[in-house]
């Protein structure tokens, strides 16, 4: 069975790179969500304090 090493290289190189890209994007999204939610919570807390 002949192996197409060019295609294999694409699968290996592009594939491994894409795993990193996908998980880095996901890590950024999770971090950003946490940041936004903590800002909202802090903002709400400050608004509640001002009302009091």
């Amino acid at each position, binding site marked *: 069975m002949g192996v197409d090493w060019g295609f294999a290289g694409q*699968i290996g190189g592009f594939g491994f790179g894409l795993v990193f890209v996908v998980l880095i994007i*996901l890590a950024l999204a999770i971090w950003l969500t946490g940041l936004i*939610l903590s800002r909202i919570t802090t903002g709400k807390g400050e608004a509640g304090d001002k009302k009091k």
Partner: protein
Amino acid sequence: MLGFFQTGFGSLTWGSIVMIFLGCVLLYLGIAKKMEPLLLVPIGFGTVLVNLPFGGLMECIVAGKVVESYAIGGEPAGLLSRIFYYGIAWEIIPCLIFLGLGAMTDFVPLIANPKTLILGAGAQFGVYFAFFMALLIGGLWPDLHIGIKEACSIGIIGGADGPTTIYLTNKLAPHFIGATAVAAYTYMALVPIIQPPVIKLLTTKKEREIYMKPQLRPVSKTEEILFPVITAAIIILLVPKSAPLIGMFMFGNLLTVSGVTDRLADTAANAFINILTILLGLCIGAFLSAEAFLQVKSLAVFGLGVVAFAASTAFGVVLAKLMNLFSKEKINPMIGAAGVSAVPMSARVVQKMGQEANPRNFLLMHAMGPNIAGVIGTAVAAGIFLGMVG
């Protein structure tokens, strides 16, 4: 007398006796040594059953003739061949196992420390390393018939994720499914034996002693609920072919964290996944028949599987050490080894080794982050393989 009645004794071969013995070894490891008993007991018993002659558990009808072992393209006619055909060949059981896993998994360590996702990505190195090794061996020994699709199926063993391995192999190289599934599950059970020497080889005692604060940042309920929705959307948009695995994984988690579907979450995390584990374990064992398993290609898959697994562990550790060069707060590089997706065995190994090196250290929660990231990473790698060669 009773010439019309046939017992199995006369048809026992050396091959089937070897495989029955192997099944008993798996049972011994599961029952006496308590090594992954939920996997090894069904697999071991399935192996014993299928190697007893004339049981007909994996019978298939091919061109009107009944054959004893499973045949791709044949009509299943035995109990286990039917379970395999409708459960695995139809790609149902592996994906539903992900639903149960999602319901069982606590993603808080990952949400609290998202950079551990990078360690999960790094630990996929073994998948691609074994992919190239498989192609190389396939090139050197053409009789093994290892092409690109077979190499993808062998490589994914490095992710140490049984359901993903079965799902991908069934799609790309179904004739390899017995060997890859057994290799993946065996290596998952052997995590405590395979990983420690690789970790010790790549870390100094000082590095293994690195202390990590036991507390992670608090994660709000809203974050927990948003996590499965955001993760499913991002990953499926980027790698659409990972949808069956990631979709079920995240749905299972949503059932648990939403707090309003407790009954469904409880079923998914307990009864449902237990039923699926029984069916899957028996089917994998049933693929360990002498004629299907005692072949050079199975041994090649086993050999490459351990290479893949060790390479994943090694690269995870090396990546964690690299991350330490750029981060203010040092991480214990051993947690990189947990980037393989054998949840939670791999994290437990790191915890145990961490405590041996520094009794003050409690690394379990820190190692769970890369461990869960590894599950996601392997499913993504499988989706990429499918997108490129499926």
